[in-house]
């Protein structure tokens, strides 16, 4: 699959310009600018309460910024809602997995494929037998390592399998960028290692903006890191630059990292 998200000459896939969001006196997002370049994994780190969630929610469209703009794949998306942004190919995974617990693995991925191909308003054909949906759905399930689990209801999946399912659903959007909100949360060491490998492969499909607490994973995966503290980005750079940055060491890494 030829992907616009892997050509470095094309300029940033996702660009945030001077985003500001205040809640009363608190500036949760304080003049934040950020780019996500083709082919990279860009990690966003920061202590609790730094405003990572608020920033993410402005990128997904759940929260409107007070000022500033978000550009995606060359167009301004500041005024679009979450569904429209997803349709443009901004795929996301959630901090707490957001799946459809009553549905099977197959039905979950079918929903994502349906969203990417024509939406909800088809009243006649059974999607489980729809040749426009089914082959792609099975491909995504296979790529995320869930083959053989198609008929299992989500409520009975393990934590790691749910993470994989979220990624399968993100892939179904034919994404141009991934927005992954703490994908390592709650994973055991072994599961985290598997998932690190899966995430590393994702960048070949589209660039990844990764919000993550697991520093081992961040340092292993990221091409660039941005550090958010009190709503401001205090540093952006490569892994080595961030490790060496005195301000970051002081305010976040605690000096011993």
């Amino acid at each position, binding site marked *: 699959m030829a992907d616009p998200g892997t050509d470095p000459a094309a300029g940033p896939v996702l660009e945030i310009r001077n985003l500001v969001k205040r809640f009363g006196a608190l500036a949760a997002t304080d003049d934040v600018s950020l780019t996500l370049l083709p082919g990279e994994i860009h990690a966003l780190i920061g202590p609790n309460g730094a405003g990572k969630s608020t920033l993410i929610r402005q990128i997904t469209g759940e929260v409107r910024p007070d000022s500033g703009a978000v550009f995606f794949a060359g167009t301004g998306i500041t005024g679009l*809602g979450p569904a429209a942004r*997803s349709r443009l190919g901004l795929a996301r995974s959630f901090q707490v997995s*957001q799946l459809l617990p009553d*549905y099977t693995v197959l039905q979950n991925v079918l*929903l994502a494929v349906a969203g990417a191909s024509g939406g*909800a308003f088809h*009243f006649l054909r059974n999607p489980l037998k729809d040749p426009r949906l089914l082959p792609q759905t099975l491909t995504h399930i296979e790529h995320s390592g869930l083959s053989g689990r198609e008929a299992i209801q989500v409520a009975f999946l393990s934590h790691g399998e749910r993470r994989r399912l979220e990624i399968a659903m993100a892939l179904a959007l034919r994404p141009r960028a991934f927005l992954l909100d703490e994908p390592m949360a709650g994973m055991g060491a072994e599961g985290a290692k598997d998932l690190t490998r899966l995430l590393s492969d994702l960048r070949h499909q589209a660039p990844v903006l990764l919000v993550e607490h697991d520093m081992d994973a961040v340092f292993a995966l990221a091409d660039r890191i941005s550090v958010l503290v009190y709503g401001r980005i205090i540093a952006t750079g490569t892994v080595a630059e961030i490790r060496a940055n005195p301000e970051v060491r002081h305010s976040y890494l605690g000096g011993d990292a």
Partner: protein
Amino acid sequence: MSREMLINLSMLAVLILTGVIAHLAGQGFVVTLATKAAIFALAGMGLNLCLGYGGLISFGHAAFFGIGGYVCGILALHAANAMPLVAGWSGSNQMLLIWPLAMLGAGLIAVPIGALSLRTSGVYFIMVTLAFAQMVYYFAISWPQYGGDDGMSFYTRNQFPGINTLKPFGFFLICAGVLVVVTAVIALITRSRFGLVLGAARQNRIRVEAAGIRPFPVLLTAFVLSAMITGLAGALYADLNRFVSPTMLSWHMSGEIMVFVILGGVGRLCGPVAGAGLYVLMEHLLGGITDYWQILLGLVLLTVVMLAPGGLIGILSGRARHG
């Protein structure tokens, strides 16, 4: 065919056979009871589409039931008295024209009610739908032209080509036929892509948005379709009694329709058939013994909710709810 589908079809079959056997045995009254059960089942099927499949707990479906009834009653009244209604047209006594107009009326009212209610969720959704239904109820009470508080009678049943609707069995066949057709339509819709997304919106709207689909138009469509089906049931109910009154619009009615759905099994295709059947049966059998039969209904409802949340269909099919 799954066991649950078999149970669903059996529910329809039991209802139809009850009517047929009662007719053959000359029990016109039982035929009328079966007709009432079929109409209530239809009203419940409408509610089940939004409550069961879409997770929208509407406590205002009496509004749509009553609007369907009033559309039927008003058209019949004008036709009987050759009274002009709009643009020199004086109503109709043809069911095949009354039904689509009843559905249209209920659907048109459901668009603003749904659009506003869907801005809320949970208990607020319940209260907002209730509030709208109460507005319609008080409007009907204060509208003297069509009976106001007392309601209005029309003296002959509306007509259907080739069937004598005044014979209990003829009217039963019509109602049972409508129920079967609507069941088939709902089975089709809920298994379609629309149904997949509707069920997904019930479980997690955030996920639906992340999949690139706005839940709002899907939920609103389900709400309006649901109102139209319940409105159609209202038109049939008006014809059954040859009488409409604000009672059809009251919040008790909304509660009863909800009881049909919960007794039979929320989100089960023929749950409302089982629920309405049981309700009419209890009303008839226990209502003959005591005026306080609804205490027993309450106990049955409590038992179902506590012990068998899948309702009658859930008990019979022995299967937890699926998507």
